[in-house]
Every structure is written in structure tokens, then in C-alpha cells.
């Protein structure tokens, strides 16, 4: 099970990086590896469940205009605080908005923020890790000390600070969430680069006169990619938790954008008379997190069986 918000940087790096990447250089072997990986993944019921729920959420986000029975921000499509019924599967909120439609559209915010923030953090963190690990010396020291500093911040607190600096809006939420995940990517990448750097084929490339940049991106990066992908898969749920936390605090995407965290917060005031307003969006959020955790674990076990607990 993943630790989505964990402050510890689990060493997903395990030595011997060559093994995971054998497929990266030989296309045929890669295809065989993919098929073998899928077979291993399929045997893990938790991972398959996670993938299934994840695909449902993706479908919800993509097909939201088709699937949502009502306009998510239209007020008065029902009476305020209607209990769940056939007309409104999840009931209505204090403005008479359809909660089910808002949950479906809320999947967009959750997924976009979760995935884009992790990708952004991955790009920045991996680049820093590559530079740090490959060049070493003072560059390494400076980059990694900054990462240590970033790492000391609890992710939600760093995100709160970033929102204070940047102001509201979905794009700023993505950046705010991403900043908290840069350091783990940089650390994981750097650790693996240090190991790969010593391999004879890197030495051979360098002696053959291949430039540093080419070596880093063509020879080092493919060989450290597997743990980075694992790390990415494990972090998406954390990014979604952080986003929903920001939304809950009122620092997320501005209303009336449907975001799960804000829906939960708005419902809290009505918990006595209309408990469904807060509880039902929370079920969506929890399902998404459980699914992504299971999926992340499945990806980890598939790409790096040694990490299996």
C-alpha cells in the first residue's frame, strides 16, 4: 500500500538499475517485457481493481458533459437539500445543484491536478536529479541541499504557502501541489544516476566522445526510468489528497468550480439536516485515493518485483 503523503522517501531505487531497463534499448524485448509485466500486473487483484476504478474516473472526467445529468453549476435544478433519489442520485446541495453532476465534473479537477502536478514535479525533479547525480561536486551539493530544504516542508503546508504567493485558480493549484513533489523525484533519480554513472557503457560512451547531454538523456535516463515511473504512479494519490485538502481549506479552484474537497467543506455546515451533501463527495474522493494507491502498488510490483512486501 502506498503512503501517499508520506514524508519518507522510500528507496524505490534498489541497485542494479540495468535490470529494469534491459527492455528500454531492445524494442522486441521491450514488447515481451510489457506483456510479461501485464501478466504479472493482472495476477494482482488489488491492482486490477485500482486500474478499473481509475479508468472509471478517467471516463467520468472525459465524458463529464455526456454523463452528468445536470449542469454542475446550475442552481435550483432541484430543491435545496433533496435527499438522494432517482431524479438526483446523490441528492442536491444548499443551492439546489445536482451533487452527482458536481462529483462527475469534480473528477476533472482531481485528475487534471493529480496527474499534471505529478508530471510537472517529475519533469523538474528528474532533470535536477540527473544534473545533480551526473555532474556531482558543487552543483550536486547546491541542488540537493535545496531539495533537503523543500523536503522538510509538509506537502500541504508548502502548497498553502504557494497558494499564498500565487493566488487562486486551477493552474496555481497544480503548481502549488507540484512543488511539494519535486524533491522526492530529484532524490530517487539522483540515487540511481550515481549507480548507473559507474557502468562501463557510460564510460564507453564518454570515451567515444559522446557529449554530456546526449549521455544523460540517451544513456542514463532510460536506465533510471523504471523507478521514476513507479514513484510517479505512487504520488498521484498524494497529489489528489493535497488538492482536495487545499480545496477543503478554501484555497483550491475558486467556486463554483466543482472540486471534491470544497464540496465536502460546503456540506459540513449542513451535516445535521443534510448529511449526504458532505458524505457522498467524500466517498468519491476516498474511492479515487484507494484505487490510485492500489494501482500505484501494482505498478511498483510489476516494474520492480523486489520492492514487493
Amino acid at each position, binding site marked *: *500500500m502506498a*503512503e501517499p*503523503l*508520506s*514524508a*519518507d522517501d522510500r528507496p524505490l531505487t534498489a541497485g542494479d538499475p540495468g535490470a529494469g531497463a534491459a527492455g528500454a534499448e531492445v524494442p522486441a524485448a521491450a514488447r515481451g517485457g510489457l506483456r510479461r509485466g501485464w501478466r504479472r500486473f493482472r495476477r494482482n487483484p488489488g491492482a486490477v481493481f485500482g486500474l478499473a476504478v481509475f479508468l472509471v474516473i478517467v471516463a467520468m472526467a472525459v465524458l463529464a458533459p455526456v454523463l452528468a445529468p445536470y449542469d454542475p453549476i446550475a442552481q435550483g435544478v432541484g430543491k435545496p437539500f433533496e435527499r438522494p433519489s432517482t431524479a438526483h442520485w446523490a441528492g442536491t446541495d444548499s443551492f439546489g445543484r445536482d451533487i452527482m453532476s458536481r462529483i462527475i465534473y469534480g473528477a476533472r479537477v482531481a485528475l487534471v491536478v493529480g496527474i499534471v502536478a505529478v508530471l510537472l514535479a517529475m519533469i523538474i525533479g528528474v532533470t535536477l536529479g540527473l544534473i545533480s547525480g551526473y555532474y556531482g561536486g558543487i552543483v550536486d551539493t547546491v541542488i540537493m*541541499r*535545496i531539495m*533537503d*530544504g*523543500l523536503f*522538510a*516542508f*509538509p*506537502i*500541504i*503546508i508548502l502548497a*498553502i*504557502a*504557494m*497558494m*499564498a*504567493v500565487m*493566488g487562486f485558480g486551477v493552474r496555481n493549484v497544480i503548481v502549488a501541489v507540484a512543488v511539494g513533489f519535486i524533491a522526492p523525484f530529484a532524490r530517487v533519480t539522483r540515487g540511481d544516476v550515481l549507480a548507473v554513472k559507474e557502468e562501463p557503457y557510460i564510460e564507453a560512451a564518454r570515451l567515444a566522445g559522446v557529449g554530456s547531454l546526449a549521455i544523460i538523456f540517451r544513456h542514463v535516463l532510460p536506465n533510471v526510468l523504471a523507478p521514476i515511473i513507479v514513484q510517479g504512479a505512487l504520488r498521484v494519490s498524494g497529489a489528489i*489528497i493535497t488538492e*482536495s*485538502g487545499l480545496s*477543503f*481549506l*478554501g*484555497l483550491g479552484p475558486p467556486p463554483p468550480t466543482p472540486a471534491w*474537497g470544497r464540496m*465536502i*467543506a460546503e*456540506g*459540513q455546515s449542513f*451535516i*445535521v439536516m443534510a*448529511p449526504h451533501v*458532505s*458524505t457522498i463527495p*467524500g466517498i468519491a*474522493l*476516498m474511492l479515487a*485515493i*484507494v484505487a490510485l*494507491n492500489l494501482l500505484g502498488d501494482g505498478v511498483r510490483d510489476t516494474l520492480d518485483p523486489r520492492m514487493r*512486501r
Partner: protein
Amino acid sequence: MVRFILSRVGQTLAVLFTVSVIIFALMRMIPGDPVLMRLGDDFTQEAYTRLRHELGFDRSIVTQYLIWIRSVLAGDLGDSFLNQERVSTLVLDAFVPTLTLVVASVIVGILIAVPSGIVAAIRKDSAWDYGSMGFAIFVYSMPAFWKGIILIWIFSVYLGWFPAMGYVAPWADLSQSLWRLVLPAVTLGTFFSGLVARIIRSSLLEVLDQDYVKAARARGVRRAALVYKHALANALIPVVTVIGLQFGTLLGGAVLTETVFAIPGMGRLSVSAILNRDYSVVQGTILVGVFAVVVVNLLVDLLYAFLNPRIRVA
């Protein structure tokens, strides 16, 4: 041991320095002129220049950092832009409830995690094992703020057992304080217990597999005695580390949890400060929060070294 302590303290100071630079840089990236914000609408050019000089904004950025960090080290976090109160007072007043919640949550978490981790390890692969580990994953995946609302719904609204919100300091009225802490501490503590139970289970399984435990078993030591006298002490050492590593996450979770339960802590202070654009308070809250995380990490590392003879002796 002395060398270990010195090197850890050195690392901690380096991290604290970086953290202070990051926070300083962040606050300088805020759009808008802080001098203008203090002056309000009606001012002269002369007043502007004077205040700018007083606040040090006409100096180099390095000098500005040095001025700032010197006053921080002296315990001066500036004044609240909103009501001229000392930021240090505001932050400390808010930090106490948050820390109380974190400590209570760690206690609740351990009270739940130790028995369920032990049961899961002793009866590995039984219904007990799957049940307690399934529960651990379940409570772990529930977002703290949602779990808090569900608990309020069940235990305050429906059953009426506990108050839904509010905070009373433990030294003001202990029973009232504990009474109000139950739901928030369970909210955050179950999250923590989910993590710790799994770690206790796996470290206990590992310890039970060690030769000294097998030897004790061969001597005829009963299994219960084995677990409690021989294995558990060693299995608990990693838990100390987890408290350190997760202190930041717990603090972050506390920020959300206290918002649910209307506890006047760091979360409420920082969010209201952001909404009011009261940046010296934002800066102070974040600074104190992160410093606390770094220092707790140091203390836990030292405690770990002390508990683990392999490091203590080396």
C-alpha cells in the same frame, strides 16, 4: 556517538538555513509592494521613502535576508499587518492547540496500532491479519477532513457522545479538553495507526524470524512471553523513526483536522492570514511549522540512535 550527534546537528542547521531562505524567497515573490500595502491609500512620496528605508527594502536582497533572519533568531517574527499584534504571539498561541492535537493523535494511533499490528503478525495470514490490515488501509486512505466530518456526524450529531467542535487547553480544564480532543485525535490518530500497524506487523515478523527469537523458542519460552519480552521491544524501534518521518504529515493533517473541528490552531491562522493577505503571519506560521518538523526529526534521529545499540556504540 558524539560524532553522530554533531553531524546530525550540523545537517539540521543546514536544512534550517535552506528552509529559511526558501520561505524568505517565497514571501518576496508575492506580487504587490509591501511598503504600499502598509501605507494605505493616502501618503506622500517622502513617507513612502522613509517607510521603505525603515523596512529595509532599499538594501540589497542579501542584507534584507540577514536583517530578517537576525530578528527571527531573536524571536521577532514581525507584526501582524491586520491588527498590529506580535506575529510570534499569534503563532505560538496557534501552535499549542495544533501540537496538542498531534501528540494526542500519536497516542491514539499507537494505542490502536500496537495491538492490531501484534495480532496481525502473530496470526499471520489469518482473518485477524487480513481484518486488521484491511482496516489499516481503509482508515489510512480516508482523507482526514472527510473522516472528521463522518465522525462528527456519527458521534456528535447522531449519538451525541462527543462535542462536535471547539478547543479547551489541557491546563485550563483537563476533562473538558480531553473530551473535545477525542474526535479530532481519533480522526488524525487512525491515519497514523494505519501506517504504524503495518510497520509493527512487518518488523515484528522480521524479528520473530531472528535467531535469538528462535533460540528462545527452542528453550521453551512461551509464545506470548516471547513476543512481549523479546520481540516487541525491537519491533517498536522503527515506530520511533516513523513518528519522526511522519511528523510533518501529521502536522499537515492537523491543519486540516483542526479546520473541521474549529480548533484555533495553525491551520486556521494560516488560512485566514492568506485570505486577509496578512503575509507576515503566513510567513511566521510556515516558518514555525517547518522548523518544528526539522527539529522533531533531529530529536527522533537522536532517540533512535540512543535506542539502537548498533548506532549508539559506533
